[in-house]
């Protein structure tokens, strides 16, 4: 199935722009994040600590709604979903 990944600010620069990734049916958010990290060294470094843990500043959204870090391992994605990755906001 295909999932659209949108990235913003410094994460957009590291990942290189929006992506459409092919992931296995029923893949979780964690599985998708790993796939994004595998697209390039820069993307991997921007998203993950050396320990493999998601970096503290990464904010996640699934179809426009915030996703709690604790839920990434269980949140199953569906074909056509949109996942967004971004650092803390700085508007206003």
């Amino acid at each position, binding site marked *: 199935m295909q999932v659209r990944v*949108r990235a*913003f*600010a*410094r994460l*957009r620069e590291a990942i290189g722009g929006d992506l459409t990734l092919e992931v296995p049916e029923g893949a979780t958010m964690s599985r998708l994040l790993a796939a994004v990290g595998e697209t390039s060294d820069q993307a991997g470094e921007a998203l993950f600590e050396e320990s493999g843990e998601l970096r*503290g*500043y990464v*904010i996640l*959204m699934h179809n*426009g709604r*915030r996703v*709690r*870090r604790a839920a990434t391992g269980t949140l199953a994605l569906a074909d056509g979903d949109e996942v*967004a990755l*971004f*650092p*803390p*906001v*700085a*508007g*206003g």
Partner: protein
Amino acid sequence: MISVTRDDFDVNAVIGRVKQPDMGALVTFLGVVRDDGIEVMDLEAYEEVAVKEMETIRDEAFEKFPIEAVDIIHRIGRLRVGENILLIVVGAGHRKEAFDACEYILERIKQSVPIWKKEIGKDGERWVPGESHGGDA
């Protein structure tokens, strides 16, 4: 009206649109690009979510304060020093609630609306650090 746009706005025109006969106060916040030794600023948004979040913030303000109207315009794209970034206009019967609601809306925008700023100067560029993680970590 709530919008995220690349276009500049006419502050007086927005105030005129918001103003109604039952309002005794219109409080306006105008955020502009400050000269911190930068040349330009690039603003980027997760547009659909930013608009929805600002609509949620407007609805919160209506619940918390006895106000009559709210307009919010946030610009994105490349802006020079002195250019308009953000306009909030709150109309109310009286000044106190208009000031309080305007401040509330501004602080909430800084906290949770997905918009980012990159400052570009002669010596390079930097992303303005976010003031908030927006809750959940």
